[in-house]
Structure formats: structure tokens, C-alpha cells
């Protein structure tokens, strides 16, 4: 039996080794920072942005990555909280002059601007950039369909768009809208219409990013793996002086590495391998990181966001209102608060707190018995459902939770977990089979309630690709209200109307919303946490990072 004893000893040793291996992190080597001004920021994202092309990206990761590489005519103030929702001029000299009953916007390009490759910026680059964005079927296209001829251009792909006039000599840009649009100034500050040189190819530039006008330029991009920034040489020579409201940035550049294991990311920030992780710590480490580092390396701030489960309202079984309402009764936001480990507060409505028009209501208090009864009465013909979610924690667990809720209600479910890199692209493509229900979240593009209705719940936003109306919700009365409200300037009356619209849509239950998330900034002890600016639209600004 000596042999047996030896084997038992090996077993114990192997178990110890397995524990050791499991607790080892991956991670990349660190290039380190400088100390004080300059240095290279070594940061990590959990996934590569959907696109590294400003015309196409529609994710927090993408906008955070490109906010200081590509500038639109207008932009958001570099400030935390509500102050950061103020629209300020970027490439434009001033905010637009609005005339013709809110239908004409006139702006002037600042003189002497240059792209990071030295090409001068021209006024005609703006209409080119809008046309390129629409030609690429960008998910942001519909924001600009109010420009005269833009919708027709989207169909024919034949330009130019008659509603945009640009004069390269004077720098004047005139935009004529078909109808007034209360949100258009905000939309001119989105990255979709960041100005690009006219030789930019009509294709996704993620692997070879185009030159930009911001303080940093992307020097290397490896989709799926990471990317690098350096200072834009023409910022100091030309653009920085022309745009004094925009900071030049402290660090000399940044190297971003995609590390898909969030636990490893936390370890690597703790031990200084990385200076910052863009995504929040995973739920398993959230409480520990908060307890150990809050105030010194970790900061939590509210976001204007809604997390929700969508249901395809055009296909059985969710084409039945009673089924959708039953699902709403069955989703327990208190359970999801625990799944998000305290980084989410429960809610059952579309508009999040902090967004104008938000008025709290609760149409579907958790009642599983009632939900089951409703399903029994509805007796849906199709009980086979595919549930879609991404693989980032804790969204994957939220998806698993939803899958189990539907199973509890008697559905035969299949859960599809997709990589966060392409989740949005896959579920936004209507040729993907079995898009029945799934998880999604929405962070504000701009501080206007229209941003939570038009792209996500208006019939006109249903597109073959880059579709964000995953619920395929197309109610003529709701569509009309969304359009009418978008044409008005936001005031108390409109806010009340948006609050009513929120409740009206939730009565039809295309979603089962479950909460609003906080976001965190977690940096290494080399970084000055107080200097980091988190903008509600763009995320953390690269220019605000500085080494201690």
C-alpha cells in the first residue's frame, strides 16, 4: 500500500498547486507612469469597444476611448456631475445661432485647426462626416434624420445632403432641419458627428483609426486586444490654442490592454500593474474594493442609466401584452440589487433618476404567483424562448437570473451568452435568429429624456442592423408623441409629458426595467484620484488622469 500512500500525497500536492494556480492572475507587464506631469497611463478595459470609429461606436467603452481623440463641432464640458452636461463649443467658435423658428443652426468653424496628421480642418469636412456616418448605417443616424434630405440620403446613399451647407473660406456651416428639434444641440455634441478628414474611407476604421482633432491620437489599435494613445502633435501647435476650454491632458499617452477577467483587473490595479480599470470591479470584489480603497483609489458616482430586460413585442409569446406584464411581475428588482452587489438601485421604469421627466412609479410590484396565473390565462402558443446576455459580470448573472425567471414561468429557455465585444452588434442585427428576449442597459447620450425613447422605443428606430429597439416596439400613438416632444424645447410641461410617456409605455411592458447603476473609478495608488473627471456622457476623460 506504499504506492497508495504516495498517490494520496500527490493528490494533496496537486490540490494545493491547483489552488495556487487558480489564484494567480494573468495581466500584462506595466510600462509605469512618470510621476507628476507626463508619463504613460497603463489602463485596462474588460472588452474592446464595439468600434474604434466615432461614426459607429455606440457604447460607453467606445465613447470613453474616443472622447479626446475625435471632436465634434460642440462637446460636453470637462466636469463631473451635472456641470458636465453643459454643451460647449469644440471645433465651432461658439454655440450655434438658432433661427427660422428653431429649424436653422448656424455655426462657424474655428480657424487654423488641424488633424493629427497635419491636414487642415475644413468646414466641408462636417457634411462629409455626417454623410459618412449615415452611409455606414451608423446606429446614430436617426438622430440626424431631421436634417433636410438626410433621411432620403440614408435610403439612396446619394449626396450631398441638401440640409447642410459649408463654406470652407468663411468656415460657416448652416444646418437646416425639416422640423424644430429640441435636442439637436446635444446631438451635435455626440461622437457620431465628430469631424473627420474627407479622405477617411467609407468603412469601419477600428483597426486603423482615422486622424482626429483632440489632444490625443490613437497610434495603434488591435481589435480585441488593446490600443495606444500619444499626444496629438498638432494640439500644441494649433488646436489647443484655438480651443482653450478643452484641457491638453497631463499624461503623454496611454496603453490600453483588454483583460477579460475582471478579478485579474482588480488585482492588477491593486498591485499597480495597471493604473486604471475602465469598467467597475466585478460584484465579487466590489464590496472589498469599496471598503479598502474608497476615497483614496476608488470613487462611486451615480449614472443616468437604466438596466432592463427587453422582450420582442412582434413575435410570440411576447406579442401578447399579458405575457409581457406577467414577466414584469416576475422580475424582482431586489434580487437584482443583490446580484449587482450594491452597485444598482432597483427601479421599474424607463427614465432613470436625474433625468428630466423622471417621476417614480411602480406598475408591477413583485408577485410571482400573479405572474404565473397571468401566463396560465394567456396560454401562449410559443413557449420556446432564447434569452441573450453578454458575458461580463454581473450582467451575465442578470441574464441567468432572467432566464430562470422565464423558466419558472413555464417557458422552455435557451440562454445565449455572448462576448461583450460583439453583443450589441449581434443582437442589433435582425438576421440573428431567435431574438426573443434579453438583457441590455442604456446610459444617457445627452441629458434629455428623448434619448431614452427615440433610439430605444420609437418605431422609426427599428433598423435591420445596429438596431437598439430590441423590443421591436412600434406603437403609432407613442411614435407620434416621441416625435412631437422631440421638436419642443425642454421645459416643465415637456418634462411632465415625458413622465406620462414613461408610464404609458410601461403599461405596454416592452421592457422589464430593473434598476439604475452607479459607476466607479478605480485607480492605482500612483494616480491622483481627485483629478479624474467622470463625465455623465463620455465617461472618464483621459486628459484628466495624472500621476501623483
Amino acid at each position, binding site marked *: 500500500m506504499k504506492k497508495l500512500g504516495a*498517490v494520496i500525497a500527490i493528490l494533496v500536492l496537486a490540490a494545493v498547486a491547483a489552488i495556487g494556480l487558480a489564484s494567480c492572475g494573468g495581466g500584462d507587464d506595466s510600462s509605469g507612469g512618470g510621476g507628476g506631469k507626463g508619463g504613460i497611463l497603463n489602463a485596462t478595459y474588460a472588452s474592446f469597444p464595439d468600434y474604434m470609429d466615432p461614426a459607429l461606436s455606440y457604447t460607453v467603452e467606445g465613447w470613453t476611448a474616443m472622447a479626446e481623440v475625435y471632436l465634434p463641432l460642440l462637446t460636453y464640458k470637462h466636469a463631473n456631475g451635472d456641470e458636465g452636461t453643459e454643451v460647449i463649443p469644440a471645433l465651432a467658435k461658439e454655440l450655434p445661432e438658432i433661427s427660422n423658428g428653431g429649424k436653422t443652426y448656424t455655426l462657424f468653424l474655428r480657424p487654423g485647426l488641424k488633424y493629427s496628421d497635419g491636414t487642415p480642418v475644413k468646414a466641408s469636412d462636417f457634411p462629409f462626416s455626417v454623410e459618412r456616418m449615415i452611409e455606414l448605417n451608423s446606429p446614430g443616424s436617426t438622430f440626424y434624420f431631421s436634417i433636410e434630405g438626410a433621411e432620403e440620403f440614408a435610403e439612396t446613399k446619394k449626396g450631398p445632403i441638401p440640409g447642410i451647407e459649408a463654406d470652407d473660406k468663411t468656415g460657416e456651416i448652416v444646418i437646416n432641419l425639416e422640423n424644430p428639434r429640441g435636442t439637436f444641440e446635444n446631438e451635435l455634441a455626440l461622437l457620431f458627428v465628430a469631424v473627420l478628414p474627407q479622405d477617411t474611407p467609407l468603412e469601419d476604421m477600428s483597426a486603423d483609426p482615422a486622424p482626429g482633432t483632440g489632444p490625443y491620437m490613437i497610434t495603434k489599435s488591435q481589435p480585441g486586444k488593446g490600443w495606444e494613445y500619444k499626444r496629438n502633435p498638432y494640439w500644441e501647435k494649433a488646436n489647443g490654442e484655438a480651443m482653450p476650454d478643452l484641457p491638453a491632458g497631463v499624461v503623454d499617452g496611454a496603453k490600453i490592454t483588454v483583460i477579460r477577467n475582471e478579478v485579474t483587473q482588480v488585482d492588477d490595479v491593486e498591485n499597480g500593474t495597471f493604473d486604471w480599470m475602465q469598467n467597475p470591479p466585478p460584484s465579487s470584489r466590489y464590496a472589498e474594493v469599496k471598503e479598502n480603497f474608497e476615497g483614496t483609489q476608488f470613487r462611486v458616482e451615480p449614472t443616468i442609466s437604466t438596466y432592463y430586460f427587453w422582450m420582442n413585442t412582434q413575435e410570440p409569446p411576447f406579442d401578447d401584452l399579458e405575457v409581457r406584464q406577467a414577466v414584469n411581475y416576475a422580475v424582482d428588482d431586489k434580487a437584482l440589487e*443583490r446580484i449587482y*452587489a450594491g452597485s444598482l438601485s432597483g427601479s421599474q421604469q424607463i427614465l432613470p433618476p436625474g433625468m428630466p421627466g423622471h417621476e417614480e412609479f411602480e406598475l408591477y410590484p413583485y408577485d410571482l404567483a400573479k405572474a404565473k396565473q397571468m401566463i396560465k390565462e394567456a396560454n401562449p402558443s410559443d413557449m420556446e424562448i432564447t434569452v441573450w446576455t453578454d458575458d461580463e459580470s454581473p450582467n451575465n*448573472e442578470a441574464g441567468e*437570473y432572467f432566464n*430562470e425567471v422565464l423558466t419558472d414561468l413555464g417557458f422552455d429557455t435557451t440562454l445565449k*451568452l455572448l462576448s461583450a465585444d460583439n453583443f450589441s452588434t449581434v443582437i442589433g442585427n435582425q438576421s440573428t435568429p431567435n431574438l426573443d428576449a434579453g438583457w441590455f442597459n442604456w446610459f444617457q447620450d445627452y441629458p434629455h429624456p428623448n434619448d431614452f425613447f427615440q433610439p430605444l422605443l420609437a418605431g422609426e428606430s427599428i433598423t435591420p442592423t445596429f438596431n437598439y429597439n430590441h423590443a421591436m416596439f412600434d406603437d403609432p400613438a407613442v411614435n407620434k408623441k416621441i416625435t412631437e416632444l422631440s421638436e419642443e424645447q425642454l421645459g416643465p410641461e415637456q418634462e411632465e409629458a415625458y413622465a406620462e410617456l414613461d408610464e404609458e409605455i410601461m403599461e405596454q411592458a416592452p421592457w422589464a426595467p430593473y434598476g439604475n447603476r452607479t459607476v466607479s473609478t478605480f485607480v492605482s495608488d500612483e494616480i491622483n484620484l481627485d483629478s479624474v473627471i467622470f463625465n455623465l456622457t463620455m465617461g472618464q476623460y483621459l486628459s484628466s488622469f495624472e500621476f501623483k
Partner: protein
Amino acid sequence: MQDGETSAERGPWSLALRRFLHNRLAVAFLGVFLLIVVFVLAAPLWADHVAETGPNQEHTVDTVTVDGEERDVVTPEGKPIGPQWFDAGGKFFLGADSRLGRDEMVRLMYGGRTSLLVGISAALIATILAVVLGLVAGYYRGWADSIIARTLDTIWSLPVFLIGLSVGIALAVGGLKIGPLELAGGSLWIPILIISIFTVPYIARPIRGEVLSLSEKEFVEAAVAQGAGPLRVMFGEILPNLASTVIVFFTLMIANAMLFEAGLSFLGAGVQPPNSSWGTMVTVGVDLLRIQPLLAIAPGFMIMLTVLSLNIVGDGLRDALDPRGKARLDAALQFEAQAASPEPGATRP
């Protein structure tokens, strides 16, 4: 068997069994493996009568009574309850698996069923395919052998795990549809097929070698002379002589297939959530390693114990079924060792 029976009077299987039973290590680990099988087969009993929950049933906002005190299965901060052993009447014996609050012990038992099912099924398919291919290649030789052997070489030369991973991820999303064969994305058959296809060469190559040798034996020539057709010769004459090799490989392949499955599932390309296998459970456990290390250790230990048992049993079977093979191997190893060490009196250059 009667007392006093000589070895010459015993059949080869009886002798093999006797040799196997004398290998105490192999017998001990066969017992361990059988205990594991009983453990996973008892999953519904434990789930229904002790834990009173299913493997995928979530208890995020539930409480459990531990020594008369109500405790959250998952705290508001998202921390799952730890091992309760029998303090809660067997509920959450190993704790909750994640913030979804599923019973870890129940998932471990059901996950073991999945892992064993995938391992045994994949090994069985791979063995059947390998035997057929090995027989055809070794018996017919010529172009049939060339095509089969080169195909096996090609599969062998591929980075099997990386390809399995890529194929697994692609099929986990889109499923598989080839003619009438249709598999949904989350089907267990996807990892089973991936593993079995990529492991065929590991069995088919040695079997082909043995068939090449056996087909030149007198009993094969005799069968052919008596008018036996190729199918009868292959499956009636040669295959029975391959039985010991096939049994040994099959046992070892179960272990390999289980490891393959654990690796694929750990990386998200094998068994799909919410179903559990020991591989997926390690993934979930690693996420919570700091606060509940047992969640990764328990399934990891089960994988290790099962694979080790099967390997030792496989070695024992080989020694029992083919003692000359072991003697040949021992002789070869001794020869290699002698060649490597300098002879007495010899000087180094």
C-alpha cells in the same frame, strides 16, 4: 472457477481479472471512481430530500435557517452564504454558488453527471470512430490507409484545444445544422462532438498499427482461405483481438475527454449556463475565490479525483489485459536507461 484450476485452464478474461484484482492501487481507485458515480447518480435524491432545491433554482433573496437563526443566502452586498455542512439540515451544504444563490452541493452533483456524461459519451464516440477507421486503414491499406492516416495526422497536427475552443464558442452561439442534424446552441452534444472528433487520432493511430500487425497473422490468413469476407475478417477475427487495447484506451479517453470538457467549459466554450459541469463551476468559483474558495476547490478536486482514478484504473487494465505489453515497455525503458548511463569503467570524452 474451481479450486485447483491451473492458469492454462483459465480463460484470458479470467486471468486478466485475477491480475487486475491483485493490483491493489487500481482496485482502490476503481472503488473511488464507483463512489463518484454513485455520488452523481444520487443527485436527485439529495436535491429533493435534503437540499430541497434544483440545480438551477435561484435563492438570491431567500433566507435559510441555520441553528434556528435566519440567514440571507446572498447578502445585500452580494456575498453568497458559505458552507453550512449539516447546520441547515443539509441545505447549502457547500454554500451558495454565486450571487444567484444556487445550492453548490446540488450543482456539484448534477455538474458531475454532466461531466461524466460528456466524458463517457465523447470517449465512446471517439473509440467507435477510431476502431472503425483503424480497422479499415489497417486491413485495406493502400489508398484507404493513406487517406485515413493522413487525415488523422492532420487532426493530430492541429492545435486541438484552440480549435475546439473556437468551434465551441461559435457553435455555442449559433448551434449546428448539417442536413437533418440540428443542434441548439446550448446542447450538450456540441462539446461531446467536438471532443470526440478531435480525440479520434489518439486511439485510431495505435489501433491501425495493431491491425496492420494482426492482419498478417495466421488466423487471419486462415479465415480468408475459408472464404470469409473483409467485414467478417475485420469485425469477427481482428476486432476481438483488439478488445484489450480498446478497453484500455476507452478508460483513458474518458479521463482525457473530461479534462477537455473542463477546459472548454472553463473558457465558456463547453457546457453552457445555466447548466453546470465541474468545468463551469470552477469558472464561477474562481470569480469568488477570495471570499468562498471552496466554490472553486470542490469541483476542481472532483475533476482531479475522477481523472486520476480513471488513469490509474486504465493503467491497471492495461497491465492486466496485456502483461507482455508492459514487459515489452519495461524492457524498452530499461534498455533506454542503460544506453543513457555510462558503462562501468568507461571514461567521459
